[in-house]
């Protein structure tokens, strides 16, 4: 059974990816899980300058979901490129660098910085972070801005270019098409949905940042619908994510049109999930005589 897949020029041995922000840079993960079960890993969203992130509390559990307002805490591109990536590269798993910026100039500068690293297999442009005030999600909610941001990165980066989209828009298809026109080789979806929680004892919002991004099983039906719509609207491969906690979940995304899947919140609960999901996909396919994963990508609409 052949589990390999392609996302915009990037060949993966297996379709399961670590979602950005739930794997860090691998240093902690390797103590609890086995990186080799990932087809690729997407590192924590990285910005040019270091960011301290938002004030705590930063997480709140909701029914079958998780709200987070981390706020892109990261040590900055220089440290990531100089220290984190060379360390992570030893595991020989393709590294996807997730980047975030407040302007097209910054996006272009960041892409140029990562282009000089020998360890980056693909760039994932985060135009969908709900937890930062400037930039972030603004680029992902307007087709024009998404096009401009993608173009800015495209000019500075020749390798596989993934644009990560937000579901917090009226029609994702228009944004997705703009990203592809701007030069995206693949699309990642979905980032978190903006939400909040209130503590009735203190009568205040739970999160220090007031609002946060909702992830986990609670958003899976929304995410599936997004993958279904976008994968039929564009010709580039889609990486599907949102609440994947089992092989069944992953298969649903693949059948909705995803060429690969990412696990975020599920990883926080079970570091061994990538192995379980990969093995489960394989078993499903073998039990049905499916020889290649590609046979079932988009099976629900093809």
């Amino acid at each position, binding site marked *: 059974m052949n589990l390999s897949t392609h996302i915009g020029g990037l060949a993966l041995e297996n379709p399961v990816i670590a979602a950005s922000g739930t794997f860090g840079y691998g240093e902690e993960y390797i*103590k609890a899980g086995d990186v080799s079960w990932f087809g690729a890993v997407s590192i924590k969203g990285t910005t040019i300058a270091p960011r301290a*992130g938002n004030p*705590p509390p*930063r*997480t*709140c559990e909701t029914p079958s979901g998780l709200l987070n307002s981390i706020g892109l805490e990261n040590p900055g591109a220089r440290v990531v490129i100089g220290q984190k990536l060379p360390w992570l590269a030893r595991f020989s798993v393709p590294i996807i660098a997730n980047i975030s910026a407040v302007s097209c100039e910054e996006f272009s500068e960041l892409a140029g910085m990562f282009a000089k690293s020998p360890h980056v297999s693909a760039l994932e442009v985060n135009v969908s972070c709900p937890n930062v005030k400037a930039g972030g999600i603004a680029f992902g909610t307007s087709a024009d801005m998404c096009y401009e941001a993608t173009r800015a990165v495209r000019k500075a980066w020749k390798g596989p270019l993934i644009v990560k989209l937000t579901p917090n828009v009226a029609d994702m298809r228009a944004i997705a098409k703009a990203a592809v026109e701007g030069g995206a080789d693949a699309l990642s979806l979905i980032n978190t949905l903006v939400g909040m929680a209130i503590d009735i004892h203190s009568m205040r919002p739970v999160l220090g940042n007031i609002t946060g991004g909702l992830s*986990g099983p609670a958003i899976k039906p929304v995410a599936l619908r997004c993958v279904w719509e976008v994968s039929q609207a564009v010709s580039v491969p889609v990486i599907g994510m949102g609440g994947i906690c089992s092989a069944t979940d992953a298969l649903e995304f693949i059948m909705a049109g995803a060429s690969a899947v990412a696990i975020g919140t599920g990883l926080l*609960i079970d570091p061994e999930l990538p192995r379980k999901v990969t093995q489960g996909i394989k078993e499903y396919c073998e039990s049905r005589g499916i020889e290649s994963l590609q046979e079932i990508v988009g099976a629900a609409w093809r």
Partner: protein
Amino acid sequence: MDLRQIHDVDARIVRLSNIRGNLYSMCLEAPEIARTAKPMQFVNIALGDSTDPLLRRPFSLSGIHPDRGTIGITWAVVGRGTQIMAGWQAGRSVRVLGPLGNGLGIDRLCIDHGLVLVAGGTGIAPLTPLASQALEKEAELQVFYGARSASELLDTGDLGAACMVHLATEDGSVGFGGLVTGLLEARLSAGALGNGRPTVVSCGPKPMLNHVKQICNRHGLPLLVSLEARMACGYGVCQGCVVPRAGGKQGYYRVCTDGPVFRAEDIELGECTG
């Protein structure tokens, strides 16, 4: 090479009991965790196969027994997750991720001038394995332990026989009437701890920790505190559990991997969550 130090094990509940009121304890068969765990480390316990509640819950190790291959945890029912756990029975298996956090082995501590443990509420639980190690090393050990009332005090059993345990209850039903910090201050001011500078380790609610920090500052005593924070992963990947750095330093520490044990001067207790 297996780099894994944190194990996700199917642990059988050997014993589970209701201590009294909303306080419970259980003993889990988890040899992989028991073998390497240090005092003040914690585990992340899955509540079942359902996605609601979604996250695991963090609990400090109140017992570490490598010889028997077991670990113990002690908890208070405060919400849905801890209520679900209270309904579990011996014999069932639960998924336990650990050991987590930096922990605090006795070898990392200066105990030449003695060791003072200050606990509030369930905060006594994680201090118990440390106390055992300290007694094995024949450290001069004193324990200050407070709760709202006698019914909320956990049994300090073996500890009581081996060292000085000073109890405080807010309603005065047992021991000193008032907060444990009031008792600590009174004993320190009376010179009851001698002239040395014992190391203080404290675990309990944030206001208590703050108070202990002020007292230790006044008396020039080194203080280590064990913190709690809202956690999603418990193993360092999500950056959800942060506490602000002190001393003019920018940014945050993660309670789950940089802690839960911190030197009091390294963190901003005033703003930490829990």
